[in-house]
Every structure is written in C-alpha cells, then in structure tokens.
C-alpha cells in the first residue's frame, strides 16, 4: 500500500492528513513543538502508523510522498531569531533596508516603532561598484571592498551574506563577482544574491527580499537537514516536498536555496484545498476562508487560478517573491471584545489565543471572546468542544460578557453576545471585500468555502453580508491546509525586469532582448523541474508580463495565453496590449484604450509547473435523504432573524454524508467543526462529503 501524507505545522497544532490509494484514510492533530517542529512531525507520523495498526518502520516504508508546510522561517522573522546576517551593497546606499522608504504605517502614533532591521547597520557594508539603469557597468567591482567586508563578517561570526547591488536586475555580473569572492572565503556561509533571488527592478524590495532570504536560509537548511535525517533514520524512501508561498511545492534542495519562498507559505495551500473540495461540483471560482483561534485568512480563486501578489510583507519588511494573495486579519475564536471611549463595540485584533484562552476555557481568561459569545448564543456546546476534550464553562462566558460588554453598553447579555457575533462577521466580510470588490470581482459570483475550527459557525452570516448564497464547509474543514498540500504541483517562479515601451509588433527592435530573457528563464525552469524528476510532458510553462500605462507607478500582471506567444519570434503584442487594457478596466474601472496612451513593460515573468499525481478523492456512497439517524438532540440557540432563542435540532456531522439533506435552522456538530445552518438555508452533502449550505431564494441570515 502506498500512503501520502500532508503535514501542516501551525502555531498550536500540527495537522496531518493521511491518504491511501482509495482516498482519505485518516486525520490527526498533534500539539506543535515550536523549539523543534520535527518532533511533532515524527510523533504525528507515529500516531498515524498506530492508527493503521502498522509497525512504525513498515508504515514509513509504505509512505510514497510527504508534503510538508512549515512555519520555521516565518517564526524566525517574527521572533527576531534569524541567522546572523551581513549585507554587501553598493557604496552610498547601505541604509535602504532599514529605511523601508521612510514609511510609518501609523501616521498619528508618535510612539510607533520601526521594526528592527534583520541586518544592523554595522553589518551592512559598502562596495564600490556601479551598474546603471540600462545594465551597463559604470564602475567595476572593487575587490578590496569585498575582502575587507568579508574580514568583518568573519570577525562577527556571520552565517549568511546577502548581496544586493543597484540595478543588478539589469546586470548581475558585479554581484556574481562579489559572490565568488565571498564564497571563496566563507564557504560555509549561506549566500543570497539579489540577481539570483529576484532579478527585478526596485531596490528596496529586492534588497529586503534578498536579506530575508539570507536571514532564514541557514534556519530552513538546518531544519530540513534535521527532518530528512529523522526520516532517513526511520528508513523513509519516499519523496519529501515543501510547501512554498506561491501555492506550489518544491524539493528540499531547491527550497533551501530560496528559503524566503516559505515565508508566506502558512495558508498557501488553501486554494489547492478549495479546488479539490469543489471538484465534485465542477466549480473553479470561489473564495476560501479559514478561521482559526487568532486569525482569519481569505483567498480568491478564479477559473482555477488563485490570485498572486508580489507585494507581500513579513514583519513590515517587503517580500517581493510571488506569493498567494491571502488577506489575513486578526479575527478568530479567541478575538477579544472591547468598548472604545465613544461607547462602540469592537472585536479583536487582540486575541486570548490558546493561553489563557477565552473566558469559557476556565484557564484564567477574563476577557470576553468570540468563542464565549458563540457558547452563550448556543452555537457551541459546552460538553462537545473539540469533541468533548475541552469542557467549556458557560457561566464564565456569561459573566465575562455581562461585566465587560453588556453592563457598560446597558444591553442585556444576549444582545451583547449577538453584537459581538455580528461585529466580527462584518470584520471578516470586510476582509473578503478587500480581495474581491477591491480587485474588481463581485463576491456574489463566488461560493464561499468556509474552513477552520470556528469558520462554519460564522460562514452563513459572513456570506449574507456579502450577498453570497452558497457556502461550502469542506469535509476536511479543521485541517484544510494540510488537505490542500497533497494536491499541489511543483512550482517555480522566474522574473526579469526590462523597462521599455511595449513593442508595437514582433518586428520591433526590443523583441530580440525580450526573446533572450524569456529563453533564459525557460531554460532555467526546465532544468529545475528536470532536477526534481519531472518529465518534459509534465512541465508547463506560463508567461506573464507586468505592464502599466506610461507614467503610472503600479503595474498590472497580465497572463499571456499560449496562443499569443506561440513562438517567441512572433509574439502577438496586439493581443497582449488588449489583455492589459481589459484587465486594467476590470481592476480600476477604466482603461486608456481609446486615448492610445503608451503601454510600458516592466517585468517578464515565467511560472514553471511540474504536474504531480493527485491522490484520488474518496467518493461517498449516496444514502437516503433522511437525517433522523444523526439527530443527537436539541438545544436552545439564538436566532438573529427572530431575536430570541429557540430549540434547534443538533445533528452529528460524522454520521451525515452524501445524499443527506436538512433544512435550517439546525446545528451540525462533529469533533473539530460546528456548522450553524440558519433559518432559510438548506444543507446538503455532496459526493465528497462536503456540506453545502444554500440560501433559499430571497432569504438572508
């Protein structure tokens, strides 16, 4: 038997999904071990073996593939425990990293501190050299400067060196010369070179990305060494793949070279998980949300393509590598309710997290949280939280909401709890607006996939805020990202900057250089995929271009369809121009097609995909529509439409499946997920075991 395992290391839990040849086999959650996350990984694998009643060695031998999402790099940046890093940069510009272009995100707060730079100034050392905007070498590299910088790095015990020179996007040879000198004298250091990491125009963004890559490079390498060692000791012979921020996976060796590609990888598997979840319904456009204890992640997928951004940040430092566009806000079960001086209610972004946790956990938490409100409103059962493993104290929840919210607002405690529920729903709906409305998409055209422990309680109400009529609660709601990891392809992204007017035709003089740059990326991409064992027929290369109207600052990424670029000798620039106008119009409500404003090319991009085998999804046998067998009982729950409590039927979600249908109002509970089906909604299960909520025509929660 061949197993596949998806492993998602989170802040509190490490999630596991085990797939066998016939689909889903088991789900497991293990407490994370932040000091060395591989401990929880191995413990979880052992638990999965036990679940299969197999000996550990035998089980490990049968694993064909492990896809692993890790937050070791993200945590290192957030906690300031990155590797000791030095920066070598063009003389005269050593402060660009720390300056962050002089932004203060909170304009009125004079105590708002800038984040500490990953490389302090005394380790940011200059080299005399210069390339101009056209890529010409104006000054060759002064080797003596590199030598003296390396002396300093050695004396300071530097583990990683970032090299970023001005305009290295146009010509990286000075950087390469410096890198050779550094590698000679510091053979053990992790060397991160901007023209390799991200040959893309904009100095601060490239410097910051290159430095982040250096700062987390040794940490990720160390972790991967540690993990592969443990797997080898267990005689693991399968493949290990690592989740990247761009939503694809890559082999450990490749990820170790571009460690920064894991920095935003936490929620990056959600779109892939969404695609799998929706496959039975043949739907490729949707919004996914994942609501955990402290944060809420929202992503939009259109026609199978997740939105990608190159303007991410980590700890307020720019990360310009392509990553899934995921909007994260501080909203979760632990979000704390508070009242401002004007008497208005707010939820979060502060969270009671897992410790002390919501008041109802009875671990000393006194602040009223979203979970407390959900308990008071009857959406959560005191005796069935996490399948009964955590007993909730309804009295503590009520006391906390009464004293801190209801009394100051002179409301009754139930109205206060419902206010908390409503405010957090509006916050989450706003976060979804940012990735839909603000990008030119109408959320009503996208079903809402609602995952995470707390998500499905709020799903219908969030959807109603946005006018979305269909909510899907995935079968693997509580381990959503882990489930996506087994369904991702290998993916590598390449970029070359070339700031020029967009050619008018394929005869234009710029075509030669563009061809050269595209060919270079194609060659690099094919060899990377080949090294990962991907045969040519499984390789897919996609070209896109960053374009803008002359004089604009922000560029628009335009996917170039294969037919526009059938051969590099005859690129259909007219078609590309038309696509740009169209996309600009969708994003910003206008385009300058008629005015004939010149269009500028800024970056050429190439995404290389290595298509992997996806495990089969387990299809359920259809049962009769009746749900009586799953009815656990009734409990009073708050009905927003009526403004009072009513006894609602509570169903055991683990006993419901394909073919079952029920009408709201109702509550569906399983071990890690509770679904609230409001009045006016019909719930049904599809062939994959996903629960689908449909609003009846004209009805809103």
């Amino acid at each position, binding site marked *: 038997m061949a197993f596949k395992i998806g492993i998602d290391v989170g802040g509190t839990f490490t999630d596991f999904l085990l797939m066998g040849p016939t689909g889903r086999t088991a789900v497991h959650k293990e407490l994370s071990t932040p000091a060395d996350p591989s401990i929880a990984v191995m413990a979880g694998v052992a638990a999965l073996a036990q679940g299969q009643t197999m000996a550990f060695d035998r089980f490990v031998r049968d694993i064909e593939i492990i896809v692993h999402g890790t937050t070791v790099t993200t945590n290192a940046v957030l906690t300031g425990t990155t590797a000791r890093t030095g920066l070598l940069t063009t003389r005269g510009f050593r402060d660009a990293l720390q300056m962050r272009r*002089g*932004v203060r995100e909170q304009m009125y707060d004079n105590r708002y501190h800038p984040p500490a730079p990953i490389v302090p100034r005394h380790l940011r050392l200059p080299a005399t050299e210069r390339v101009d905007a056209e890529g010409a070498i104006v000054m060759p590299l002064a080797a003596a400067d590199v030598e003296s910088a390396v002396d300093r790095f050695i004396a300071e015990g530097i583990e990683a060196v970032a090299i970023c020179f001005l305009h290295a996007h146009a010509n990286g040879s000075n950087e390469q010369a410096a890198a050779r000198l550094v590698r000679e004298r510091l053979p053990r250091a992790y060397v991160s070179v901007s023209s390799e990491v991200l040959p893309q*125009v904009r100095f601060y963004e490239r410097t910051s990305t290159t430095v982040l890559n250096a700062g987390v490079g040794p940490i990720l390498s160390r972790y991967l060494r540690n993990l592969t060692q443990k797997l080898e000791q267990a005689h693991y012979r399968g493949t290990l793949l690592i989740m990247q921020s761009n939503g694809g996976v890559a082999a450990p060796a490749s990820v170790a070279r571009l460690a920064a590609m894991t920095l935003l990888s936490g929620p990056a598997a959600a779109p892939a998980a969404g695609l799998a979840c929706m496959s039975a319904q043949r739907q490729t456009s949707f919004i996914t949300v994942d609501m955990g204890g402290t944060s809420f992640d929202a992503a939009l997928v259109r026609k199978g393509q997740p939105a990608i951004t190159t303007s991410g940040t980590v700890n307020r430092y720019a990360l310009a590598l392509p990553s899934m566009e995921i909007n994260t806000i501080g909203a979760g079960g632990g979000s704390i309710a508070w009242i401002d*001086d*004007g*008497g208005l209610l707010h939820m979060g972004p502060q969270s009671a997290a897992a410790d002390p946790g919501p008041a109802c956990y009875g671990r000393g938490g006194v602040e009223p949280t979203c979970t407390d409100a959900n308990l008071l409103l009857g959406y959560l059962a005191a005796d069935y939280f996490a399948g009964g493993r955590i007993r909730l104290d309804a009295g503590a929840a009520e006391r906390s909401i009464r004293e801190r919210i209801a009394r100051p607002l002179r409301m009754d405690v139930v109205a206060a709890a419902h*206010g908390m529920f409503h405010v957090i729903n509006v916050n989450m709906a706003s976060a979804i607006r940012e990735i839909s409305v603000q990008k030119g998409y109408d959320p009503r055209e996208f079903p809402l996939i609602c995952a995470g422990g707390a998500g499905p309680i709020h799903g219908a109400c969030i959807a109603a805020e946005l006018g979305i009529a269909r909510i899907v609660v995935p079968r693997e709601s509580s381990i959503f990202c882990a489930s996506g990891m087994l369904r991702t392809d290998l993916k590598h992204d390449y970029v070359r900057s070339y700031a020029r007017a967009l050619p008018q035709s394929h005869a234009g003089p710029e075509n030669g250089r563009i061809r050269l740059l595209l060919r270079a990326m194609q060659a690099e991409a094919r060899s990377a995929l080949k090294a990962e064992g991907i045969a040519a027929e499984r390789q897919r290369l996609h070209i896109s271009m960053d374009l803008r109207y002359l004089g604009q600052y922000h560029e628009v990424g335009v996917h170039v369809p294969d037919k526009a670029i059938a051969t590099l000798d005859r690129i259909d620039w007219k078609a590309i121009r038309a696509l740009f106008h169209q996309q600009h119009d969708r994003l910003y409500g206008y385009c300058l097609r008629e005015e004939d404003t010149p269009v500028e090319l800024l970056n050429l991009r190439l995404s290389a995909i290595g298509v992997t085998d996806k495990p089969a999804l387990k299809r359920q046998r259809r049962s009769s529509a009746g749900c009586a067998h799953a009815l656990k009982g009734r409990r009073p729950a708050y009905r927003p439409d009526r403004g009072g409590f009513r006894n609602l039927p509570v169903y055991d979600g683990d006993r419901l499946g394909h073919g079952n249908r029920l009408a709201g109002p109702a509550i569906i509970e399983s071990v890690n997920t509770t679904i609230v089906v409001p009045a006016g909604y019909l719930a049904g299960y599809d062939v994959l075991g996903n629960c689908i909520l449909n609003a009846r025509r004209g009805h809103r929660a």
Partner: protein
Amino acid sequence: MKPRVKPRTDPIQVSVLQRRLKSITEEMGLTLLRTTRSPILNEARDFVTGLYDARGRMLEQTEYIPVLAFALQPACENVLRFFGDDIHPGDVILHNDVFSGGNQNNDVAVFKPIFHGRKLVAWAACKGHQADIGGAVRGGYNPEAREVWQEALRIPAVKIYERGKLRRDVWNLIFANIRLKIVEEDIKAQIGGCTVGERGYKALLARLGPTKLERLLGELFDSTEKMVRKEISGIPDGTYRGESYAFYDGVTDGTKMKIKLAVSVRGEQVTFDFSGSSPQTPGFVNAPQSATASALLLTFLMLIKPDIPHNAGILRPIRIVNPEGSFLNARFPAATTFGNSITGPTSDAIFRAFSQALPKMVTAGWNRFLGFAVSGHDPRHDAPYVDILFLSLKGGSGATWMADGYDHIGLINCAGGILAQDYEMFEIHDPHFLVKHEYLPDSAGAGRWRGGLGVETEFVMRGDNVTGVAFGDGVEEEARAFGFFGGKPGSRNAITLSYPDGTRRQAKSKEIIRGIPRGTVYNQVAGGGGGYGDPFERPADLVLADVRNGLIGVEAARADYGVCIDPHTLVLDAARTMELRRGIP
C-alpha cells in the same frame, strides 16, 4: 408640543456602520492609488477621499497624508452654499479656490452628490495634489508670486458634469490653462474614485434605508464627539501658550514670521487662538484658513488616541480663532502656495503649548520640510520631465517620552505617509544618476530619547535646461528641529549645487534657480529631529549601538551624551562614562 424621545442608541449597528463607511473611503483611495498617473498622487499619496453628509459634514475620511485631514469639509460647505438647490444627480463639481474653502491651489477637489430618489443625501469627494495647476511656474510652487493669479488657475465651485453630461466647454477651458496632460487623466481618476464612493454609499442606503442611516450617523457623530471630549477632559484646565517662527518670506532676507498661539482648555472644550501672529507676507509664505485648520487638526490627532474615527464629531469640541489678515489666514488675493508648509511651524507652536499640559504626549521638533522641485528636458527621451524629489527631503521626527524620533520620516504634514522614491525607478524616470542616499550621522538631536535621523542625498543632474524651485524651511540655525526637556536640536537642512565649472551654490529656502547645467551635482541634507529629555540619561548601550552603527560619532557621544567610547575598538569605557555623566572632566 410633545418632547421628542431620543431613540435608544444602538452601539452595535453604529460600530458596523463606521466600519462600512471606512471601507468605502478606503476603496475610493485604492482606486486613486492605482489609477492616477502623477507620482505625487500614486507614490507620495498626496490625496484624501471622503464621504460628507447633505450639509457637508464629514462622515468618514481616509487621508493618505495627515495635512489633508481637514481639507475637504470647508470646500464641500462652500459648494453647497454656492449651488444651493441647483444640485442634481449626475453632477460633478470641481474646486480648488483657497479663498472659498480650499487649502492649497494645487489640491483640486472633485465632488459628486449622492441622491436617494430626488433628495440629496450625501457627497462622495476626493482631493489630490495636481502635478500642475497653471500659474506662472510649472508645478505651482512659485516663490516669486505676489498674488494668487501668479500661482494658479482659480477654480471656484464649477460643474464639469451636469446631470451626467460632460460640459466639454468648461472642461476645455480648465485644461487649456494647465500645462500637463496627466492632470486631466488624474482628474478623471478622481471622478472614478467618487463614483466608487457613490456606489458604496448607495448600497448602504439600500441596506439601511435613509431614516435609519441618518439616525445611526447622528449616533456615530455623538460617539466620536464623546471620545474626543473624554480626551480633552483629561487635559488639565488652563491656558497654555506656545510660539514658533517660520523663516524667510521669500522676499526679504532675514525675515521671521511669528506664530503666537494660546490654547485654552475648559472642561471638554478646547480653543486654539492664533491672535497676534505675524501679518500676511508680500510673498507666498501665507496660509489659507483651511490649511491652518488642517495643520492644527493633524497635530491635535497626534496628541489624542490614534483610533478615533475621522468624522465631523471630532471637530465639535474644538474652536479655532484665527483672525483674517495674518500669515495664517491671508486675505484675498494673497499668494498662499507655501501654506501647507507652514504646518511645521504651526505644529511646533502646538507642541510647545501642550508641553506644559501633556508633557508625555508632545514630541520635540520635527525636521522642517525643504523641497526642491526640478523640471527640465530629459535628453534620453527628448521629452520634458518634472520631479519633486521626495527621495531627498525626508528628515527625522522629534522624539517623545518613551520613544526615539522616527528616522527619515519626512515632514510632519505627511508623518511617514509619503514614500521616498525607489532608487532604481528614480533613475529610470529621471535623467539623474544617484551617488548617495544614506542616514546622516550626527543629525539626530541628542536626548534621553534621540530625534529621528536625517538623510543625505547626492546625485548628478543629467537633464538640460533644468530649473529648480526651492521651497521650504529649516536652513537657518534657529530653524532646526528644537529639543524638549533638555533634549538637543536636530541638524539643519541644506541644498548645495556644485556646477561643472567648479562653482557652488547654496539654495535659499525659497527661490527659483534657473539654467542648471547638465553635470551639476545636487546635494541635499535633510536634518534630524529634536531630542527629548537629558541626553546624559540615555542608556550608554543605546549610545554605543548608534556609535557602532556609525550614526553618532565618538566625539558627539562624549560631548552630547557623556558616553566615553574608544575610537579604535569602539568599546565602552563605563567608568569614564560615569565620571563624565557626573560632571567630572
């Protein structure tokens, strides 16, 4: 008559409404950020978006730089006064006139009325700093101006769309008087932003209905007012005085203009009285009333809780006395383009006044703004180019209790809201070759909390026929960012041009320099912010860290901070430091 019973307040719905209004103004802002073409708008973010009620009161606003915090409401009120009931669905109104509510000639506002049925219920509006607005000098900063017509085309409230139809004649009249084509595009982008706002507000109307919406808005104003009143009531009652100066009126060397401020706090009310400030100047160093009010409001917002919603409720407990005829409220037809740049001196006076009442909230002086707008011919593309050089003008902010100043933040008008240009994009856009852009050592005012660092910029100008317009302050010793409670002042601003023939020229703080030849080296130092508290109380290890990082010299560490560090090994001499700090020479 029966007394009207005030309906029960609904804090939940009001919270939700506030979030929704904020969302709308943010969406409007995003539209502008993405669609405008001038770097002043999309890079420096010199614009504001907002929603106003039928009476022109601010419902919600997102200003991307603080100096626009109060830039729209007076203009909106003026538009209403002028058009009265001649306002119809589909109208779009343009306005910039500083003598009817505008704050700066270059800041052009677009107003779009929002109707429910046939009733005017609100306005969507945005205002952005245009790359050109006519007048004698491209870009609008004209230190030689003596009256408004030499600065700008005046646009009092004018309809450019009437009932949905573009008034082509009016449109052409306006843009025939403006040099750059992109201004036309950017006004279109602003109209687009207002359409986004209108759409959002109409959705809100449909959801809540006009009556309920109006009631909730009233409650929102009350709630905001309550928050501000609470903040004010925390300030001890009394009258507090602060003074500061703006330097050089652009006409007569050595001139100084005084800002005289008396702040009276009585319970939950605060009055800012500028009576006694210097009379208006003959040049362009004058502010319209709206600019002074904006300067005041942005400084005040820094003294209270940062998360109070920005709506008309915030203004209710604040009274401003600013008699006409002073350089803070100049009479028609004064030149006023420098008005926003008086924000620095105005905030200095406010911080000084509040230093007695709120010593832990005020900051020491911020580095004053000194800009240099260049325009000329770019030989690479055989085309004209303009740039305001945001890259080189961002100095440091003043330190405050428990926090150092912010490095390279730039003028207080923007408070870190404008970004310095990216070096590579700068060289792609302009015929300039950068040599240096780094923190300026020893620029930060010493203090227990030190000022923010200033920055030195140097580049070679490779354009032809370049004209530079210097406009700003902070070049005199006396104009440095001041220190507070024993803190030292920050460093000066300076712009130096080194011509290819070997001569050098130091720019005045306000002047036009014409005929700058290709190959001239431009050097600008933007100074640091002022320090807060006695520098001898600053922990020695923090001073050592700055020395190791090359931000404070060994000499300055010793003289200003009483910290002894070996110049060769950069090791701290703790014993000697203790002696120095005890005054043992």
